[in-house]
């Protein structure tokens, strides 16, 4: 990775004069920045707020008293007392000549000014050179004196599914290349050639004259280059097709937990673009493929538009009134016949806080049970139990922007450059600045490749490794005694536990060399500010909660918590998995993780909702399957969660679903789960409703309706309101804002949240205990919710399954960049033009041994099921290990897995299963040939 040249960090106040006007600036800033702040507009094309200046266009020239020549204001730092002129006749003359030169390289023979070109699908009614024309008008350039013979090469790269590059209108400003390097850190673009021919391309194939640059490169379609392009040489297909947006609506991405702020572009009532917002507090203007380009599933032809009821094997369309009546009737009937505990709801971590609160309120107040859970169960539930035990609070302790303050970043069992790509990009930026990176992962992920130390442990051995690190910290005297004394308890117990975890012993269990264990421990303990982020590689294990606890212990032992640039930060997965749990869609806690048996809460709850709060804990999702199989659970309402594809041990889940008397599924699409439903209710997407999401740094942000849902579709909050009302408990909210007000009144950590306050671009990070409180970017600065944090000793225990002769491979499952969870959404976008199947990753040596080749179909067999899928030979996985994803129903990955789960949280052991790999024999028909996966396209991120 390229090293960054250091510039002076902004520091002291500096005063200068620009065009006769006094201007205040900071040292390290450029003249351009200072002028911009003072409202002075200097012409520029190659500069951007997000990129290091390079001084290419030379339009921003200025004159500085006492300095010869005309420096570029974008690359010249301010100095105290400087006198700058940016608007003189001489400068204007040179600017016109420069613009003239730009126009002269355009092939459209620009005399006097180029005619408006609308070639091949560019924006409707817009010349590609519009920005240059605007500038020409501003600078008073009327004529181009060069009737040049030499023009830019006519090269068009249409190989990316989402945007294209047209070299003819490019000005070689390198902003795209710099965006890919500096913002995204993917280095998929480069300038090629030199002199007049220097121009941007993706990858290397254009050197051979092929227009396949993007397709053949490692581009991850983040769109940063397109956003930076000042001319439209790089442009989104959707804009070319539908035209520029007439208005924009600020909203929040509904895929992962990053919570990227976006401006949805709308034209003629249709969403035509999604552009990451520069003032997005978490994404700072960046995005990933899914948020940026993976949204047009909302226009998918097979989107659910009307409610459906099952008649035998047939679906029948019914009216909304009939559907809501039916739902209310069935729930009333079951409650009457079998009592409240025969009903349960699985609420959606994809939905809003308001919706999740309402579903839990519905279960608690209308049905009278705590049988409500959400998808966090299969995801970070182990984080919740683990962090609760040690710290007394279960959410990221720090903020994403702390990545800029960390002096070391530790990534444990997370793959952010795919799962949370904008966060991944931030980590890569830190690495370029020289911040050390440690990665604990059995796979060689992109970050593992870039890491200073990659601790490549055996799957399922986190606790052993983390205890081993603890041992080194203790034995080498690296404990932060002051912190431990002041803020913690239980050190002794922990020290006893790690005393036996010598690096050499740890090496035998984990496979990580003892030297690396020692070095990692030293670095983590002594960096000054070590920030830990962790993911499912910690939680989705037989002993997931213990893994989380072991991580917290390390942070306590080294004082890496409660300070900027430190902490324990679970990378919560779905857009609102944090919020779904925060707002009470949990069987063990009320909103804000309040205990169900809290007498004070009971009183408040009664006062506000008019109903008592059931105090007996409810069922977790896996318990619901058992209850259904045993006939205890009769009715289930599943909102936005495709359990029949994404829960483990699918045979069991499907069996449980089919035993239910009444299953209602509410989704945008007819998912695998919906296929079991008695009633299917269409849902509105995030672009079609209002509400709030809470991202992985506890930040509540608004989503706003940008477009109307297909006729008649109600957002989820209205559906549940209607049903509750029909069941005799009127829910009459006019707007989600009112739901938030109620939630805030019930929840001390959200007490200060209101839509009014959420109008501010930054949203609010909970705890927000009062309307005056500005939110909490950093938790536990002074005290832990439980007073002192408690060291909790945990011993290493092996995973549920170990390789055997019959099943010699360890299968790790997880996600890939391009698709999202059950895939219902991403499979219905152009992303399938990049990846259209789950593939099985196998180490080259294993593949060679089994005589299997890249792209070959193989059969994956476990004790429970088998799957047929294409092989991808890859060094991302270690010998003896395999990796696959679960995004395509045709693969049926999760049928392979067992029900083994973390003891205390029931978080499934998705990350360790043992399997065998076979060549499917010739006669074998590939059953359920992968839907749409005709070619098994794949693109591994390394």
């Amino acid at each position, binding site marked *: 990775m*390229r090293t960054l040249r250091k510039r002076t960090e902004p520091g002291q106040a500096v005063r200068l004069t620009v065009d006769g006007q006094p201007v205040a600036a900071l040292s390290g800033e450029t003249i351009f920045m200072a002028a911009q702040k003072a409202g002075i507009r200097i012409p520029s094309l190659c500069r951007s707020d997000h990129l290091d200046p390079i001084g*290419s266009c*030379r339009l921003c020239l200025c004159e500085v008293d006492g300095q010869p020549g005309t420096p570029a204001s974008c690359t010249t730092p301010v100095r105290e007392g400087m006198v700058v002129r940016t608007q003189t006749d001489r400068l204007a003359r040179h600017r016109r000549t420069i613009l003239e*030169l730009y126009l002269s*390289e355009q092939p459209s023979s620009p005399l006097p000014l180029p005619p408006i070109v609308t070639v091949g699908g560019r924006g409707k009614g817009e010349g590609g050179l519009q920005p240059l024309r605007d500038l020409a008008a501003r600078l008073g350039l009327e004529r181009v004196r060069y009737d040049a013979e030499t023009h830019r090469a006519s090269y068009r790269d249409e190989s990316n599914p989402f945007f294209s590059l047209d070299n003819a209108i490019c000005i070689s400003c390198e902003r795209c290349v710099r965006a890919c390097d500096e913002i995204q850190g993917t280095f998929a673009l480069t300038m090629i050639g*030199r*002199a007049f021919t220097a121009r941007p391309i993706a990858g290397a194939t254009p050197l051979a004259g092929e227009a396949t640059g993007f397709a053949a490169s490692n581009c991850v379609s983040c769109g940063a280059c397109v956003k930076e392009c000042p001319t439209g040489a790089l442009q989104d297909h959707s804009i070319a097709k539908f035209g520029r947006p007439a208005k924009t609506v600020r909203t929040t991405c509904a895929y992962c937990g990053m919570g990227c702020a976006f401006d949805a572009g709308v034209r003629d009532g249709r969403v035509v673009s999604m552009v990451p917002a520069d003032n997005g507090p978490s994404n700072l203007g960046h995005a990933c493929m899914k948020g940026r380009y993976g949204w047009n599933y909302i226009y998918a032809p097979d989107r659910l538009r009307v409610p459906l009821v099952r008649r035998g094997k047939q679906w029948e369309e019914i009216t909304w009134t009939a559907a809501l009546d039916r739902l209310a009737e069935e729930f009333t009937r079951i409650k009457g016949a079998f009592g409240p505990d025969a009903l349960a709801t699985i609420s959606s971590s994809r939905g809003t806080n308001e919706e999740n609160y309402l579903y839990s309120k519905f279960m608690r107040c209308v049905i009278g049970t705590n049988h409500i859970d959400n998808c966090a169960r299969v995801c970070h539930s182990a984080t919740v139990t683990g962090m609760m035990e040690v710290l007394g609070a279960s959410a990221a302790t720090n903020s994403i922007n702390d990545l800029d303050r960390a002096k070391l970043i530790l990534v444990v069992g997370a793959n952010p450059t795919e799962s949370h790509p904008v966060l991944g990009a931030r980590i890569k930026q830190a690495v370029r600045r020289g911040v050390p990176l440690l990665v604990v992962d059995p796979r060689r992920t992109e970050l593992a490749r870039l890491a200073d130390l990659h601790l490549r442990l055996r799957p399922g051995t986190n606790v052993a490794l983390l205890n081993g690190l603890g041992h080194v910290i203790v034995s080498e005297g690296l404990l932060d005694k002051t912190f431990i004394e002041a803020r913690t308890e239980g050190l002794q117990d922990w020290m006893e536990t790690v005393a036996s975890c010598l690096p050499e012993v740890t090496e035998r269990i984990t496979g990580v060399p003892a030297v690396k264990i020692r070095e990692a421990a030293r670095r983590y303990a002594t960096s000054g500010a070590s920030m830990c982020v962790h993911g499912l590689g910690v939680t989705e294990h037989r002993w997931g909660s213990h893994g989380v606890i072991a991580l917290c212990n390390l942070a306590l032992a080294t004082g890496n918590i409660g300070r900027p640039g430190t902490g324990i930060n679970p990378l919560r997965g779905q857009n609102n998995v944090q919020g779904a749990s925060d707002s009470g869609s949990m069987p063990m806690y009320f909103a804000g993780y309040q205990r169900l048996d809290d007498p004070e809460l009971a009183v408040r709850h009664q006062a506000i909702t008019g109903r008592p709060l059931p105090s007996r804990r409810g069922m977790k999702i896996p318990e619901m399957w058992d209850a259904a199989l045993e006939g205890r659970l009769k009715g289930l309402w599943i909102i936005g969660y495709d359990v029949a594809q994404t829960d483990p041990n699918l045979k069991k889940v499907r069996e449980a679903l089919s035993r239910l008397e009444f299953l209602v599924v509410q989704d945008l699409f007819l998912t695998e789960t919906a296929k079991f439903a008695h009633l299917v209710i269409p849902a509105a997407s995030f672009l079609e409703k209002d509400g709030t999401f809470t991202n992985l740094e506890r930040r509540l942000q608004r989503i706003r309706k940008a477009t109307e849902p297909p006729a008649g579709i109600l957002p989820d909050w209205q559906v549940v309101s209607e049903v509750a009302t029909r069941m005799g408990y009127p829910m009459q909210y006019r707007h989600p804002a009112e739901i938030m007000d109620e939630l805030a009144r019930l929840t001390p950590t959200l007490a200060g949240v209101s839509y009014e306050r959420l109008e501010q671009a930054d949203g609010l990070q909970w705890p927000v205990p009062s309307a005056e409180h500005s939110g909490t970017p950093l938790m536990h600065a002074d005290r832990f919710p439980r007073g002192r944090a408690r060291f909790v000793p945990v011993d290493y225990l092996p995973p549920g399954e170990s390789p055997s002769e019959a099943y010699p491979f360890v299968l790790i499952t997880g996600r890939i960049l391009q698709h999202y969870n059950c895939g219902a959404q991403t499979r219905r976008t152009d992303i399938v033009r990049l990846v259209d199947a789950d593939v099985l990753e196998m180490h080259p040596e294993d593949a060679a041994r089994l005589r299997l080749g890249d792209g070959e179909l193989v059969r994956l067999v476990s004790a429970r099921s088998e799957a047929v899928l294409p092989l991808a030979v890859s060094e991302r996985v270690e010998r003896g290990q395999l990796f696959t994803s679960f995004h395509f129903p045709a693969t049926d990955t999760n049928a392979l897995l067992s029900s083994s789960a973390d003891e205390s949280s029931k978080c499934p052991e998705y990350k360790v299963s043992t399997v065998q790999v076979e060549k499917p024999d010739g006669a074998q028909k590939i059953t359920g040939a992968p839907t749409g996966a005709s070619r098994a396209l794949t693109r591994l991120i390394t």
Partner: protein
Amino acid sequence: MTRLYLSNDTSARAAGADRLAKAWAHTPGLELIRTSSRGAFFLEPLVERDMPGGRVAWSNVTPDDLPRILAGSGGAPVSQIPFLSRQTRVTFANFGVTQPLSLDEYSACGGTKGLERARQLSPGAMIEELKVSRLRGRGGAAFPVWNKWQIARETASDRKYVVANADEGDAGTYCDRMIMEGEPFRLIEGMLICARAIGADTGYIYCRKEYPAAAGTLRAAIERAERAGLLGSGPPGSHGTGFHLEVLVGAGSYVVGEETALLESLEGRRGVVQARPPYPAVSGLYGRPTIVSNVLTFAIVPSILARGGEWYASMGTERSRGTVVLQIGGRVKQPGLVEIPFGATLEEVLERFGGGMAPGARFKAVQVGGPLGSLFPASRLGIRICYDAFAEAGAILGHGGIVVYDDETDMVELARHFMAFTADESCGKCTPCRIGSVRGREILERIQVGRGRPGDLDLLADLGETMKTASLCAFGGRAPYPVLTAIEHFGEEFRRLMK
């Protein structure tokens, strides 16, 4: 056994030295010592012999001349060759005398004295010595050397680098090549002194691809210096090995000689110019403080340390101290390397050293400072060779290259050649140079074929003005000068074509 000295310098070989060596290889009783070159290239191949009164030389030797030389007849004492005796040789004092790869000879002739002195001085005192010497960089920009060192020394970093700019891109210059081929230890010594002064542990010599012999000699010299304990042999940063020095070779590209482009190229990337600040002395190679200096600049440093800054500053003119190394080429009678104190006029140099025009040729113009340098007609030869006089004239000394054109030179074609060079070699980063050079070339091309238009010369002037003022680096900034001075002094040739 008779010892003869024959230069092993590329130009000596190009002039036929190797042919002599080959022809005489098996001559009994003859020992052929391959030395550096005196730089009097018009005399090469030059064969020398120790005689009681000092070295005697035979010039433009052919294989058949051997008996004559062995008989000791017809040679001229070296001390009586005016081209050499009129010079003030400081940096090039040993040239033609010593064997390039003999560290012993180097030391015997005054080498390593500077380093020994430096070892007795604190970094601050070393830098003070340079300040007193008033040495300015010889790579073109003429920046005070001590100042750069001071900045690099004061910038805190885990690592610092010393980089010799051996890209010598200016056509018409070859003194860096001569140093690398002829006295590589001088460059190494200069770099070692710099490393001590700023606290660097690693150095690189970026040598242009066109100089294979120089790179080979340097590598051999580094190996010997390592064996002698002057340089460390371990990888950079490994403790106890001192200064690690390495030669990296480029791959063409004129602009790579510009310091920021050079550092990019040294890191293995596109050799494209980077905006400054940050300056390399603050943030250069791999983002660390780096001294990038010209080969000649480094080569001067040992003498200054050995003989004192005051001694050096006593030569030259007010703001151009010490000696200037000029390389005369083109249509003169005596092309070669000339080292004299700053301050002589161009005319004096051409007469006294160049010896007038080559037989049959008539003077038309002279260009100083490489392809970006201005042209001077006969009427302007009175200019003094020093930084200030040149700056005042809108000209540059550059790296000291002087090229004389004869009257058969077509000035329109020459102007087109300059613009074509710019259009070929531009790094492509900034607009005035990237597009402007092509437009400039196109205008000259059409003038050349008689399709010039009335406003063309004005358009060129206008374009040139913007290139001068607005370009990111001196490449685009200087590129218009040779063209515009050609039009200024030989405008008639252009206007004739535009009828």
